Structure formats: structure tokens, C-alpha cells
């Protein structure tokens, strides 16, 4: 077989490429139904395939490729919604400040990025544990103040903070 034909055959046989060709259109309309926006659907379909590239090895073994894609896309979608919520809450918190907070668009984007990341790292922790972390490490409240805000004892507040710090600072980052 000439080299060029061999290369073409290799590309054709690339399982991710095949998955993309066969299901990209389907995935985009699946997302469109849930988002109501074509540009967003196109972006998230792209994000979903980027995630597929993260584990190409399992692609050839997929019995139900669309179920697999939908699982990934649900995660992408849930992150997308969560991000919107955080952005909204962030803008509201900014607006609620007594004096204007000088903040360039670049800074704002970086802060938003950080908030999304922290939110993700705190994922799975109970509400009070999350709040204990935010109050003590972001707001700089004393531990006794955190305990009072949460209506728990000081040792409990400390235990909450330690648990959240451990998860947030040492969690292995997930894409």
C-alpha cells in the first residue's frame, strides 16, 4: 500500500474520528434541545469531544457510543449551568458592594475562573463545611465568628474548616 493511502486508512480507522463523524450532529442537536441556543450547543459539543480525547482508549470498546457521549455531555452541561450560576452570583455580589470595586474585565474573568475552580473543588462537601471554608479562608473571619455564624461549637467549626481545606488544597484536579 502506498504511504499516503496507509496514512488515510489510519486516520479513517481512528476511533475518536469515527465517533466524531458518526455522532457529532446528533450530539449537537441533543444539546440544542437542552440549551435552546445553537452557538452554545456547538461549543458544548466541541467541549464534549475534547473530553473524549482525554480517554481515547475506551472509545473502540463502546457498545453504546451515544450513551457514552450523553454521559459526558451531561457533565459538560452541568458545569456550564453551574458556571452561569456562579457568574450571576458573582455579578450580584459585586453590585452589592458599598463602594465600587475597581475590577478590569481581565481580573473579573480570572476571578470567575477561580471561583468556578474553588466551587468544583468544594463539590460534594456538605453546605456548612463549604460555608466554614468560605467564611474563614476567603472572608478572613475568625474561627469563633465562623462558629457563631454557623451556629456550631468552635471545635466543630475547626473540624469543618480542616476538612474543607484538605479537600480544596489537596484534591487531585479533575478536568
Amino acid at each position: 500500500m502506498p504511504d499516503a493511502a496507509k496514512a488515510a486508512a489510519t486516520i479513517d480507522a481512528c476511533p475518536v474520528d469515527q465517533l466524531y463523524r458518526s455522532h457529532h450532529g446528533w450530539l449537537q442537536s441533543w444539546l440544542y434541545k437542552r440549551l435552546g441556543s445553537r452557538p452554545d450547543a456547538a461549543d458544548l459539543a466541541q467541549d464534549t469531544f475534547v473530553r473524549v480525547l482525554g480517554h481515547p482508549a475506551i472509545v473502540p470498546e463502546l457498545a453504546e457510543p451515544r450513551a457514552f457521549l450523553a454521559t459526558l455531555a451531561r457533565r459538560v452541561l452541568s458545569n456550564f449551568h453551574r458556571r452561569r450560576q456562579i457568574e450571576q452570583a458573582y455579578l450580584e455580589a459585586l453590585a452589592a458592594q458599598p463602594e465600587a470595586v475597581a475590577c478590569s474585565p481581565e481580573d473579573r474573568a480570572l476571578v470567575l475562573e477561580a471561583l468556578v475552580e474553588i466551587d468544583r473543588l468544594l463539590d460534594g462537601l456538605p453546605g456548612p463545611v463549604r460555608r466554614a471554608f468560605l467564611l474563614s479562608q476567603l472572608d478572613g473571619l475568625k474561627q469563633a465568628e465562623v462558629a457563631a455564624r454557623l451556629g456550631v461549637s468552635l471545635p466543630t467549626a475547626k473540624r469543618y474548616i480542616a476538612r474543607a481545606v484538605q479537600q480544596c488544597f489537596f484534591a487531585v484536579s479533575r478536568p
Partner: protein
Amino acid sequence: MASLPFFAQAPDLPDSVCRQAAQWLVELQAEPAAPGIEARWRAWRAADPLHERAWQRVEACLRGLDSLPPRVAAGALSALPAPGRRRAAKALAVLALGAGSGAAVMQTSAGRRWRADHHTATAQHRRLRLADDSLVTLDAGSAMDVLFTDARRRLRLVEGEIFVESAPDPLAGPGRTPRPLEVLTKQGLVRTAGARFSVRQLRDSTLVCVFNGAVELCPAESAVALPLHGGQQAYFDRAGLQRSQALAQRAPGWTHGMLVADDMRLGDFLDMLAAYHRGGLSWSSRVEDLRISGTYPLADTEAVLRAVQALLPVQVRGYAGLWTRVGPRRA
């Protein structure tokens, strides 16, 4: 704004060590602090390189959090409902863990410092004579590798500052050109045929001071080598020269116990001071671009911090007298 460390992979450390580091942070932040906690915390850090690595991670994360606007950031995240079940994708997340989880471990500066050929601890200097008879003095909290071959005389500065008094190349002779003495940093190369000079690795740049002789600066992404002569100092990054200015001293201030700053970024200043400060010293990214000048005694870092607070709009806050944080002064 400093980039946040969360995006970087967390070091791969045993759960028990991570839990202990988190508990130490909580104990150090407690007010009032438990008596004797400083000694116990130091002992814990010293007991195991893994402990030190975990602690470095804690400090890096604190610096990252500190760059966020306090009330706004916490307000935004507290206002949200706790995230719903995102467990559905857990299996996928586990799949993603495999790649690179150990890779970041040795990149923490403390880890790198221990692996270096030569390093110094807090408030400690070290003077070395190299194979070519050049003299190198390591400032406190510094680390360097010696990478000499027949073709070149190269030092790699990993962290901190070195003061180099170069000797002529002993291998030079008829028909053999002398090898320049080189210092490699994260931003590029400093090269000399003969000089007394110092090189400091700052967080995002390299500071070079030339006391006698001359050196060439070769920023990593620049095709041009920049000459620097005795009585000059310069900051450069990977792209090129940031600024240069006159230098009055004849040797680095720290070799006679002083920190000499001439319109220096406060972040860089605190970085140098931290190498002499017993106990933790961290600062907010909101103050690190303030400028400071003056000559300060390294033997009394507490006094230096008091002076900094008197000079600049910053607030120095001690946590139980063992861990100090420099932040913006609140109105």
C-alpha cells in the same frame, strides 16, 4: 493578579499528611494560639519532607485565595445553592485521574530545593569553591546545581540568590578558548568571561547585579544578548530586559547582613526577607506591586516588617507570632 494554584495539579501526597497539614493550618489560624504550638508545628514540618511539601502547598493555596476580592468572592459562592448531585460522572472523573497525578510533586520549590546539589536553609549562608576555583556564596533559602562539563561551566540557580566571584577557566590554553561561566535561571542565562556578580531568582523575573567586570544577559526567548557592566543591576524576564539601574554597592547587601532595596517590588522584597524570617511569611498579591527602597537589617525581620508597615499602606498581621501575613491596610 497572580494565577491561582488550584489550576495546577495538587501534589500527590498521602491522605494522612494532607489531613495533618490542614489541621496545622486551622491550629495556626486559631486565636488565641495554643501555647507551644510554634515549636510543634516546626517539628512537624521538619520531621518529613512530605510534611514540608504539604505545607508549601497550603501556603501556595493561601496566596491564591488571597488574590481574590474577599467579600465579593465568598459572597458569590455562599449565595449559591450547594451543588446538586454531580456524582453521575464520577466514573469518568476516576478515569481522568490517571494522567500525570504524580508529575507535579517535585516541582514545588521545597522539593526542588532538597534535590539541588547545594542549598541553604533559613538565615543560613554557604560559601563554596567550585572545581575551577570560582567562589559561590548562597544566600539564605537558596539552591543551585553545578553542571560543569568539558565544554561549559554552568550553574543552575533553582531558588534564591547566588553571589559569584568567577575565576579564569583552568582548561583554557593555547588553541582552546576559555569557557564562559554561566548561570541559568527560569528566565534565561547570565554569562561572563570574568566578573563578580549576583543572580537572584524572583518569582517571574531574574535580578542580576554586577559589582566588577561585565556579564551578558541572554533572556530565553530573545535572540539578543544584553551587556551589563560593573555598577549596574538589571531585571529581565524570558522576553527581554525589564529595567536596569545604577548599583551603588560593592557586594550583595546580604553578605553583610543587610537587605538593600532600590525601588524594589514589595513582593520581591518579602521574598528575600522570607529567607531570613523564622516562621511563615506570606503576603497578599494586592500589595506585591508596591515599591520599597532602603537598607534593612536581616537579623531582625520583625523590625523590618514594622518598618514596612510604617512606610507603606500595608497591614502586617501575626498569627500567634509565628506566621505573618502582609496585606493591604484596611480603611
